[in-house]
């Protein structure tokens, strides 16, 4: 309801404007101080959790690689290192997974676009040599519970993304011709399912040339 409290005209209690400014400044400083303390105390845990979630997601869609690293898109090329004094979050990135012999097993890409309700954010892993998908996970979606959220919960649908080959084509469930590019849609959640397929195709088209151009040689010395 109306959140306007009953504001009475403030009585003039003789406070000078210097006094007012001083009070506000002190209040602001105290508030700032408290916030900095809490921020410093909570930030490590928050970041650790975010990193853990990202690691889990990358691990899942690349079928548990022995290790993985992050590649950044700098000047139209994927590189391991950021330019000097660059801010990490200003750059788009993909992840590359390696097996125990340090040979690359696949790339993981995050991409989003409009779904049924709002943006859908997906991470998927694939092998650039064959285009074969290795796994898919929906990171964020507000799709209708019980219908559109099947793109996260319907394991028949999610499981297909370990078999099919990009670029993908959505087909009605059970009407496929056995083509490796075909993905069975979900009955009752066609738009959400199609959104996932589009996301992957869009990302594939954009990143595949960049990923193919990336040279693993010498970049993995650890």
């Amino acid at each position: 309801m109306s959140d306007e409290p009953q504001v009475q005209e403030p009585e003039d209690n003789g406070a000078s404007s210097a006094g007012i400014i001083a009070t506000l400044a002190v209040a602001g400083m105290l508030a700032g101080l408290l916030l900095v303390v809490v921020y410093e105390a909570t930030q490590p845990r928050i970041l650790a959790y975010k990193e853990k979630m990202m690691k889990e997601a990358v691990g899942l869609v690349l079928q548990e690689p022995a290790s993985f690293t992050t590649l950044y898109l700098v000047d139209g090329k994927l590189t391991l290192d950021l330019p000097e004094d660059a801010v990490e979050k200003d750059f788009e990135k993909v992840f590359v997974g390696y097996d125990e012999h340090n040979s690359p097993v696949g790339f993981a890409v995050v991409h989003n676009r409009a779904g049924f309700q709002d943006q859908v954010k997906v991470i998927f892993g694939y092998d650039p040599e064959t285009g074969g998908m290795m796994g898919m996970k929906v990171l964020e979606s507000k799709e209708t519970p019980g219908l559109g959220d099947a793109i996260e919960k319907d394991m028949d649908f999610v499981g297909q993304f370990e078999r099919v080959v990009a670029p993908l084509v959505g087909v009605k469930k059970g009407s496929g011709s056995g083509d490796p590019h075909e993905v069975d849609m979900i009955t009752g959640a066609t738009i959400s399912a199609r959104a996932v397929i589009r996301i992957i195709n869009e990302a594939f088209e954009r990143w595949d040339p960049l990923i193919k151009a990336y040279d693993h040689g010498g970049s993995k010395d650890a």
Partner: protein
Amino acid sequence: MGDLIWILISTVLVNNFTLAYFLGLCPFMGVSARVETALRMGMANIFVLTITSICAWLLNTFLLDHAPYLRVISFIVVIASLVQIVEMVIKKVSPALFKQLGIYLPLITTNCAILGLAIFQTNKEYDFFQGLFFAIGAGLGLTLALVLMASIREDAERAQVPKIAQGMALVLIIAGSLSMAFMGFAGLGSAS
């Protein structure tokens, strides 16, 4: 460009601020008894939302990158002062417009839609133009919801409503039905 249009359509219809996010409920319940007032309130909202979006973008880009923990405080302080400045400017420049919007402007300060817009825009990491379209969409959406609600309530006045349903209960149930109707718009953004 298609991206911007999608943001606009989705915020007006699919993710309507009032009917899907419950933002700006206060004017929605409070000043939706007459279509005329609802329309003016909506206009005032579009105006303030647009300016807020620009300010939030400026704050995010130039100040808050280094101190994210000051986000909520600085948003609310800036919004409150902003509305007051806008009020003064309108009063000076166009007394006619002030007469139309005047009383609604202070009411808007504490309206959650304004802070909500600033925060959603930040969370969605919109750039300047995306934010602008988001704000206009949000404002149009609020106006649409307000006007629809007001026209239904004007008609409902002539109906015989049982005593226990009069007032807020009826308004909420109407809002629920409107919200359900708007669910039909879902999926617009991913058509074709």
